[in-house]
């Protein structure tokens, strides 16, 4: 036998065969991977920032499912959504509503053992205003002119103008108190340590994989109900649902209402429906023809059958109808309005505006959010009945916010729940950064300023009501509804309050075997 014979003959083949079988069998003993402990709470996050997530609570790339567990704010909403004590136990304002004093809770310690004092709060608040960090919160809290610690437990904030709703604004989910320890007073650095006062401590940070948190047994509001939390990155919404169904997750924050049926015929799952203030809007640029004519934009909003949209798009989960106001029923400043479809009036207005044969408009939307597409489609069908021919155009979801939104004359947009005081000035005040309808109404601006400076709640509410009426009469955004949020979780969990994720008290959740 020559060398070649050895190579091509049987011994070689046998070796190859055993290698092949070896490769096939090799993984089998590795199946015993890391089995998640029964008492670990497993939730998913959508990787909204594509792996750039950090644990700085106010950063643009904050890892919010994690930051809301690591840190506490000064105030948190109670069952009615009103400010209630968290790290601050008391707060009050000067009579002119410009100076606000917050008194901190006693005996609160950070994860590293150091005690919470007013320096930490001042540090955290000043960071919000840092240009370098460029927090999305900055524009909301830019009204803070001065922040100072009066003593260890007292912080005074001076505003540049009176604002009765400052506690609501400081309750913003992004604002969390971080430890100033070892931060060298550097306000502009990203906060990377993850040391907060929250119910859970950071163990492993892996935004694109699994982030692990462990319980903080010394939490001031009581020890957490689960010893460990895993936050698993699953960008695809269907994949999240499937993971829950397959038992790989304990809780999914958001389920499409039409998917309710998935859980109704299955044992072992709870479905929770609760109202939110999120909204989807179809925004007309009021500075661009034909929407610069108030009759046109009023007609385009009047023709909408909001009940039908809710039924079609939200299905069983439902939601509440909005008359184009961003203030949701859970908000103290919500005023009930009626706005049934009025096709006659819409047609009349259009004819008056010079469109007796109806109108052709282009509506830009994007797969960015399923609701944006569906609302656009239902709107298109309804508008057709009033003689408005809507041409729905799908824009790519990347670059939508910079290339389409606030650029094109008629676009779809989504917003998440915000307190009235905040959102009205954020998106409706003339010249505001995100005034996406480019609405410029002096009366509205004046009403807003008046409301902020009004001390009495009922009086303030009346002013806000007038402002909202004005939006209905003159505004450019069609806001049809506030959808109810559907949350699904394994029935081994208990203590899941029906509130928005941002304000969910994670430490009260317990998990049975």
């Amino acid at each position, binding site marked *: 036998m020559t060398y070649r014979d050895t190579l091509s003959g049987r011994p070689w083949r046998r070796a190859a065969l055993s290698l092949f079988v070896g490769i096939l069998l090799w993984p089998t003993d590795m199946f015993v991977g890391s089995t998640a402990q029964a008492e670990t709470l497993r939730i998913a996050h959508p990787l909204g920032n594509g792996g750039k997530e950090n644990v700085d609570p106010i950063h643009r790339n904050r890892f919010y499912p994690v930051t809301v567990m690591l840190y506490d704010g000064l105030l948190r909403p109670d069952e009615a959504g009103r400010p209630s004590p968290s790290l601050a136990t008391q707060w009050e304002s000067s009579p002119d509503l410009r100076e606000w004093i917050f008194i901190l809770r006693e005996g609160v310690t950070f994860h590293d053992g150091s005690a919470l004092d007013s320096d930490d709060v001042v540090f955290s608040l000043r960071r919000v205003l840092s240009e370098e960090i460029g927090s999305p919160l900055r524009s909301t809290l830019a009204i803070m002119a001065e922040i100072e610690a009066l003593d260890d437990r007292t912080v005074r904030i001076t505003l540049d103008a009176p604002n009765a709703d400052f506690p609501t604004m400081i309750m913003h989910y992004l604002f969390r108190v971080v430890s100033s320890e070892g931060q060298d007073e550097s306000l502009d650095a990203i906060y990377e340590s993850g040391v907060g006062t929250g119910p859970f401590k950071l163990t492993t940070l892996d935004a694109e994989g699994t982030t692990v948190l462990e319980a903080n047994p010394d939490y001031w509001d009581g020890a957490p109900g689960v010893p460990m939390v895993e936050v698993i990155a699953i960008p695809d919404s*269907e994949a999240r649902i499937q993971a829950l169904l397959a038992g790989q997750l304990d809780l999914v924050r958001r389920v499409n209402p039409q*998917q309710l049926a998935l859980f109704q015929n299955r044992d072992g799952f709870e479905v929770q429906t609760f109202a939110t203030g999120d909204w989807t809007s179809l925004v007309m640029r009021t500075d661009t023809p034909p929407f610069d004519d108030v009759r046109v934009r009023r007609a385009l909003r009047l023709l909408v059958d909001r009940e039908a949209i809710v*039924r*079609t798009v939200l299905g069983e989960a439902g939601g509440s109808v909005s008359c184009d106001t961003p203030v949701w029923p859970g908000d103290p400043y919500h005023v009930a309005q009626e706005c049934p479809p009025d096709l006659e009036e819409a047609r009349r207005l259009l004819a008056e505006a010079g469109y007796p044969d109806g109108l052709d408009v282009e509506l830009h939307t994007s797969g960015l959010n399923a609701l944006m*597409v*569906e609302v656009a489609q239902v709107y298109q*069908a309804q508008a057709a009945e009033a003689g408005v021919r809507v041409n729905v*155009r799908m824009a790519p979801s990347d670059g939508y916010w910079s290339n389409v939104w606030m650029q094109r004359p008629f676009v779809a947009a989504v917003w998440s729940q915000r307190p009235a005081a905040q959102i009205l000035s954020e998106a409706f005040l003339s010249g505001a950064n995100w005034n996406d309808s480019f609405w410029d109404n002096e009366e509205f601006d004046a009403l807003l300023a008046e409301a902020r400076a009004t001390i009495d709640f009922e009086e303030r509410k009346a002013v806000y009501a007038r402002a909202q009426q004005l939006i209905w009469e003159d505004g450019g955004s069609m806001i049809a509804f506030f959808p109810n949020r559907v949350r699904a979780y394994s029935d081994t969990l208990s203590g899941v309050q029906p509130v928005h994720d941002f304000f969910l008290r994670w430490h009260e959740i317990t998990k049975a075997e």
Partner: protein
Amino acid sequence: MSILLHHRARFAAVSSRASVIVPLLRVIWRRPSGAIGLCICAVHALLALLGGFIVPYDPLAQDPTAVLAAPSFAHPFGTDHLGRDVLSRTIVGGQTAMAVTGIAAILAVLWGGSVGILAAMRGGLADEAIMRLVDAVGALPYLLFLLLLAAFVGDSVVALIPALALFYGVAIVRVTRAAALSVYSTDFVQAAIVRGEPVGRVLRQEILPNVLDVILVDGALRWSWMILGFSALSFLGFGVAPPTPDWGLMIAETRHVLAIAPWAALWPCVALATFIVGFNLLIDTAGKLIGVDHEARGQR
């Protein structure tokens, strides 16, 4: 090679004598796979042509009271997530895709065919450069490539036509070049070259007639796959804009209720699959009959 060329020529000559279609169809009909393909394609052609007239409902009409309704007498295929009749939408759901990709396929055949033949004939550096470009497009993950293209042309379906033509033409370049090369090396082409005939004349009279059927069969098959690619684009948010009924879009839009209301995605899936299967069976059979075996080259 030469025998194959003669075989194909024979078929072409036979079929051009009476009418091109009828004898070919008759032969296809005798083969089981051809017959199945023919039936499916005939049904699809009928539906595509008559779709607008025979739909039981307006494909765009929404019924808020019947969202995700299960198949019933009123809605034999059920309704989708906006309460639209799935049957009606399925019937007309292929029209846009077929029209857009049809034009794109013609463009792809035109440019891919001419570049492929030129590459084969010119040889040398030009050929090498073209092949490297073709290779490069092949080396790019196709979805990324389509995404880049689609993002570039924006949201207009019309703008997608040149993009699709560009992408699918690249594969036609490869096929045409291979076919033209094998024709180029035959004696009758050499004879024309030795006669001193200019390149254009050789191309027109000797090469083109012998590669045309290869290109057409390939182009036809690619058309069917282009429809699939088009639906993938719809899935990713490009291509057809809602509420236009489109198979790919219908599947994508109802993905979230796939386990609850499978009919909403099932029927467009069935329509898409049967169309591609039927069309492939038909063209494969026809191709084999005229000696252009697509499968053997293993390309999609």
